[in-house]
């Protein structure tokens, strides 16, 4: 392999793809501003904004005071004035002080003003567990966001999607909650840093693996777990299809329904608790639209309905390959 080729296609991490997405968006559009606690000089606690302050200056990559309502609230005003703020919430559970701004203003401003004042704000929320984080650092808070009309909610599971979906989120005229599965930050893909990245936009699910025995419906941090489970299932003679939702709102019902109608069986997998979680909604929709195609009830494999556990116990809480295979086994009954 030549040096040039090595430069062109090399392993890139999801973290690097996210950084490049913001850099490219900022270079193309001077109204894009990055703001949040530690995003400037430090480059973020996960280094996702690394180098942006140096390249674009403090006016566009701003270390804010430590106050999430203030960060999002001032971003609302900046968007009202025509800027496109990209806000970092640092950790899932740190976003909660900003919920009043999010729900009462960010999600509703387009609606309140009859479309006169949409707010193009991207809210980056590193979410989910599996990194050994202590309390308040591992919540899967997606149900709060998906329950709020007016918010778009997306979550990448691959390096390409991290780039493509973040670019699409920043370009969106609506507020987007961009959930970053933090345990995938260091996942890698062969990726050319210069080549254009073309991935489907917001609102399209992707079949990541085709199969015939059952459909695993998942997103974000659970995608690699589901792909691993699908490989392991081959030993049982099951050929599993894996659908990556990519976007929770809007929800690509058609891709999901088409897949389940093909396989006749479905398991929804996510880290968030099951009660009132996205899986409950998806299972209900699949049941409504695929009832006559289903060979078994739609099952869910989710985190337990408990506060996120301490790091030494999180392996018992997070849905793993075994639990997914158990669910698939329960789908296989005859009559």
């Amino acid at each position: 392999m030549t040096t040039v080729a090595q430069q062109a296609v090399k392993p890139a991490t999801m973290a690097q793809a996210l950084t490049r997405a913001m850099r490219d968006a900022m270079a193309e559009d001077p109204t894009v501003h990055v703001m949040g606690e530690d995003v400037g000089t430090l480059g973020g606690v996960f280094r996702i904004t690394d180098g942006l302050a140096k390249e674009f200056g403090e006016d566009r990559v701003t270390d804010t005071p430590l106050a999430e309502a203030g960060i999002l609230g001032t971003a609302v005003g900046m968007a009202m004035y025509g800027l496109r703020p990209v806000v970092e919430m640092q950790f899932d559970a740190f976003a909660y002080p900003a919920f009043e701004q999010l729900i009462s203003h960010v999600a509703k401003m387009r609606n309140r003003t009859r479309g006169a004042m949409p707010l193009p704000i991207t809210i980056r929320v590193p979410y989910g567990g599996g990194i050994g984080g202590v309390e308040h650092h591992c919540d899967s808070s997606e149900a709060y966001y998906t329950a709020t009309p007016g918010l778009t909610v997306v979550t990448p599971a691959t390096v390409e999607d991290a780039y493509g979906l973040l670019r699409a989120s920043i370009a969106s005229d609506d507020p987007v909650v961009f959930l970053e599965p933090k345990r995938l930050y260091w996942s890698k893909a062969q990726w050319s840093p210069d080549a254009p990245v073309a991935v489907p936009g917001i609102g399209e699910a992707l079949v990541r693996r085709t199969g015939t025995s059952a459909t695993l419906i998942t997103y974000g941090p659970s995608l690699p777990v589901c792909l691993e489970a699908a490989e392991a299932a081959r030993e049982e003679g099951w050929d599993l299809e894996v659908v990556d939702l990519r976007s929770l709102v809007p929800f690509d019902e058609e891709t999901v329904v088409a897949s389940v109608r093909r396989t006749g069986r479905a398991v929804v997998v996510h880290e968030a608790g099951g009660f009132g979680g996205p899986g409950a909604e998806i299972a209900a929709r699949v049941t409504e639209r695929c009832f006559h195609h289903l060979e078994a009830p739609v099952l869910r494999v989710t985190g337990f309905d408990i506060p996120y556990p301490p790091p030494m116990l999180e392996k018992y809480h997070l849905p793993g390959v075994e639990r997914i295979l158990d669910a698939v086994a329960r789908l296989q009954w005859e009559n």
Partner: protein
Amino acid sequence: MTVQELPGAGASHRVTPPPAWRPRTEAAPLLPDPEPYRVLGTAAAEHLDPALMRRYYAELVRGRRYNAQATALTRQGRLAVYPSTVGQEAAEIAAALVLEEQDWLFPSYRDTLAAVARGLDPVQALTLLRGDWHTGYDPREHRIAPLCTPLATQLPHAVGVAHAARLRGDEVVALAMVGDGGTSEGDFHEALNFAAVWQAPVVFLVQNNGFAISVPLAKQTAAPTLAHKAVGYGMPGRLVDGNDVAALHEVLTEAVQRARAGGGPTLIEAVTYRMEAHTNADDATRYRTDSEVEAWKAHDPVELLERELTGRGWLDETAVREARDAAEAMAADLRERMNAEPVLNPMDLFAHVYAEQTGRLREQAAMLRAELEAEDDA
């Protein structure tokens, strides 16, 4: 190791003093006036601009009539609710009049009058309170943010607009209004802190009208005044008589000019009184006495200015009549237009949720459309 040898057990181990530290700012220049600043009834009033004060007089008379008309519309069931600003007209109107066209106003739910004084059509301003839509105007066109129902949450928006404008090199000032109760909210703190750190061109106007619904100021804060809160953020705090329109004009103008010149934010507390109940759903007799209300009647903002101007010969009977006639005409027009049933389109429910409707919303919109068509056919 014995207990005596543990670090910190004795002072003898502390050989070096802690690194030098001193406050970044002297607090004194940030401290508010010891008494609410007044102009009317003082010697300073002789330097007032008679033409400007006559304009304020006409606006105050109109504002008082607007409050009366809106309250009447509530009694007739034309408005779902109206939080009156009778007694607070001076602060409402001064807040609107000190701003230039390019500036932004961030009103709370009580500040309909400020929006009207800034030039907004009274009917558009009342849409929220009538209940036909949340905001009846384009906020960008008028540079008036939507009337904000959650308390103090509009304050960080004001900081964001001001900050963004400054980044773009525009000479825009944002004036944000909040009540005394709103100063207890977290967003009040975060907005003031961001504004001061960013030196954003914002003026925070607190109308201290005595009560947050029923809770008096003494149960809201232990600070000497609300203006004192400015000190902790590193911005000037001003205390002003909220019924003295001349004093308000001066203090607000000074704050707006400082903000425009890059001098950063100011917190202004206007001490005033809410003459009527919180809204028509409230019973103010449960938490305050008639004698308290009577005492404030003697300090009415419209009468204060009228006395001053008449006494100085700056206001004649003709001008008074003209102001009252103009107010009456505004009220008649408002009454007539508010008595017309608003035309509502139920399909608007789905029109402004996302730029592009989601599949789910398209489905629900189709369901409602079918219901409406069935209704029409019946």
